[in-house]
């Protein structure tokens, strides 16, 4: 029966090619605009670490105080003094500190010029907390942190560039004139957005080349290559004084397994801040926060507003296309009132008329969906013109997007056809037959 209705639908669509084309194009454009903007939105708003996003938290301490903090909110990173105090307190099951570094690497042949490499100075728990997968070797231990060793973990991409992809664990390499011992090579791991570094960066830029021991990087006075934010008059005159300043630049993360742990850690942050107030370091009441990954990404506004606005506008556009389709379907169906009258007089029930016209709409939807898929694929190559390359390259067409395009087009068109089909089913056979 459905096949027959579909056949009837296609035949009727052929009868008014203009009207049909109009509907198909409207749906195609509407669904394509929605899908293109959705694919970008999907790419930037995903959960970067779904298995752990509710166990990882950013401890925030207000080290700036009222009038200097971020409109009442504590700064998005820690200064050296607070960061080290939290590390020493061992109040979370795991904790890491992160800052960005830029080092020069000299490929092995003598005539080559140095190349810049970017990475993070981190503490041992970084790898276990964030489930960094390893190709060769492993991260380093907490004891290595304490011994401030010159260990380094390479990413597989950097290992490819520097060692041709061979197992480089145990080898030594020189970066910016200092020797490092390679202890591990991480498999490709590049969460989008790079949630652990969204305070200073967009979260979508190039992945790091390496991870080095934070304490060793501090010993070498490896400068922070990422964001640094200070308040009040700057008084430091050298690196050591800088470390004691109110400048925030170290990104802390803690892992807390149960809600009891979270509550306990929150109390710890409060009491730490209260201690600082008593000691005279902070001249204000404790103001601490502990957002998890999802809340942190929301707080940092990682999803560009452009992406949200364009998704909303595209959805509105799709709705208008559907309103347009309702009107055109209504015109199309009612034009065949006489035909409906004959079918009804020959014994077709209202239900059957209804089903027939919904099937016709589904055929329109399918055609619109196919046009939509084509336009989406074509539009996707133009995404690079609309969004920054680092975001545009995240958007891609995959099976699920094509499926979603078709389903959305058919579902929306059938939904739009409910009213016109209902009106068609209401046609009085006697009246139609009489008037003819």
């Amino acid at each position, binding site marked *: 029966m459905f096949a027959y209705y579909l056949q009837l639908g296609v035949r009727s669509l052929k009868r008014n090619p203009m009207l049909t084309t109009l509907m198909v194009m409207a749906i195609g454009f509407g669904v394509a605009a929605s899908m293109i903007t959705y694919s970008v939105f999907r790419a930037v708003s995903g959960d970067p670490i779904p298995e752990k996003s509710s166990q990882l938290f950013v401890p925030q301490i207000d080290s700036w105080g009222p009038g200097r903090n971020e409109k009442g909110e504590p700064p998005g990173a820690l200064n050296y003094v607070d960061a080290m105090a939290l590390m020493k307190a061992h109040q979370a099951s795991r904790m890491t500190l992160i800052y960005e570094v830029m080092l020069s690497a000299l490929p092995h042949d003598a005539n080559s010029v140095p190349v810049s490499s970017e990475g993070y100075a981190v503490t041992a728990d970084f790898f276990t907390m964030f489930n960094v997968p390893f190709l060769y070797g492993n991260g380093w231990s907490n004891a290595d942190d304490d011994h401030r060793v010159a260990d380094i973990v390479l990413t597989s991409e950097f290992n490819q560039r520097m060692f041709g992809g061979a197992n480089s664990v145990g080898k030594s390499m020189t970066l910016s004139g200092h020797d490092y011992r390679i202890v591990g090579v991480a498999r490709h791991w590049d969460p989008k957005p790079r949630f652990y570094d969204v305070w200073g960066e967009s979260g979508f830029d190039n992945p790091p080349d390496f991870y080095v021991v934070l304490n060793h990087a501090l010993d070498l006075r490896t400068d922070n290559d990422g964001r640094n934010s200070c308040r009040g008059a700057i008084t430091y005159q050298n690196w050591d004084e800088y470390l004691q300043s109110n400048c925030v630049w170290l990104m802390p993360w803690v892992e807390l397994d149960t809600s009891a742990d979270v509550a306990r850690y929150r109390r710890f942050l409060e009491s730490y801040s209260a201690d600082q107030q008593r000691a005279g370091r902070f001249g204000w009441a404790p103001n601490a926060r502990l957002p998890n990954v999802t809340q942190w990404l929301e707080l940092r506004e990682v999803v560009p507003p452009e992406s949200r606005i364009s998704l909303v506008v595209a959805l509105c556009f799709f709705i208008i296309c559907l*309103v347009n389709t309702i009107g055109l379907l209504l015109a199309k169906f009612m034009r065949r009132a006489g035909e409906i009258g004959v079918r009804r007089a020959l014994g077709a029930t209202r239900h059957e008329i209804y089903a027939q016209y919904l099937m016709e709409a589904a055929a329109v939807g399918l055609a619109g969906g196919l046009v939509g898929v084509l336009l989406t694929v074509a539009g996707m190559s133009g995404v690079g013109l609309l969004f920054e390359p680092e975001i545009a390259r995240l958007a891609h067409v995959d099976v699920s997007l094509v499926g979603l395009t078709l389903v959305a087009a058919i579902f929306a068109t059938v939904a739009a056809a409910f009213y016109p089909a209902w009106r068609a089913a209401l046609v009085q056979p006697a009246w139609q037959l009489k008037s003819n």
Partner: protein
Amino acid sequence: MHIQPILAALRRHKAGTILIALQIALTLAIVCNSLFIIHQRLSHMDEASGVDEANLFVIQNMWGEQYSTQQAAGRIQEDVATLRQLPSVQDVTATNQYPLKGGGWDNFVTMTPDQRTATTDASYFLGDARFLSTLGVKLIAGRDFRPDEVQNLGLRQNVTPPVAIVSKALADKLFPHGDALGKSFYAMSSAPITVIGIVDVLHRADVSSWSASYTGESMVVPLRLAVPSGVCYIVRAKPGQLADAMREAPKALYAENRMRMIDPKDGLLSFAEIRHRAFERDRGMAVLMGIICAVLLAITAAGIVGLTSFWVGQRRRQIGVRRALGATHGDILSYFMTENLLISLAGVAIGVLLTFGLNLWLVTRFTLSVLPLTYVLGGIVILLLLGQGAVFAPALRASRVPPIEATRPA
């Protein structure tokens, strides 16, 4: 024209009427807001940098070896000398950043050393005595730096320069009476900084919305960035020789000292490229909104054509009767035109409410500014004209229905 019979006829086509009105209303809301977004983005893209963009390019130079402050300062002076000797190069300056770079270094500015909440925030350019002339920034009051005023700034050092050159926007923000020259302020420093010069326009390094309330506020201080990581050279090519200069400069630098890194992707940028990158988001947004507006208007027009054609087909007999009773072509034409006008007017009436509703949502959610009334008026005119234009062809067809139709069965 009698409106009464049109309204009576529309009452028999409630669904179609409501759908067209609704479509016009929604289209108005989207088009007005989109045009406004486009306008805002375009005006952001038009912001003047204040520099001689046509002849400038930037080299982001990072050192391949760990230099002390003195070594780095020496290297920078060698590099600058090397670049200046190139035949295609007019001038060179070493700095930390450049206008439209994105992000960058900015300092809070206060009027007293112990003021807790800052007066404003200024983009903080480190420059030497050739900074202004290289960039082509226009000095409108005071003087430029003297070479002996320039000090080195090492790793995590804090040197408060006694003097600064500020942009007019910053001067006006700090000293609204126009007497900034010779006055002093504090830029996260405990010692005062005296204004010795004012430049007309010097765009901030940052281009994000965060900077919107500090537009154009920047300062140049006589410091040389002698840190281990690297430095940024702004090079001004001789007129018409930008391409040559951009080809020769990195070669000359590597020939002089190869222990440096100039990123192949971002290390060497012409100012045109810098501007292009800075406003990528804005351009993308404007293009997207433009496409959506155009397609939306086309679809709305097509929808009106489709539905009106259907109505004309349905009413052939009635039209024939009217023609037989003496109605002219013009009467029929104006009937359909008026009908559309009435529907469109109802549509834009609802649309105005939707437009402001959507705008209000965008304002609260995305800190967009409030839609000016001219956009709504413009949108109304566009949609009314669109409706009239779309209905014209079917209406013309209707007017050509011969009176004989009255005698034919429907």
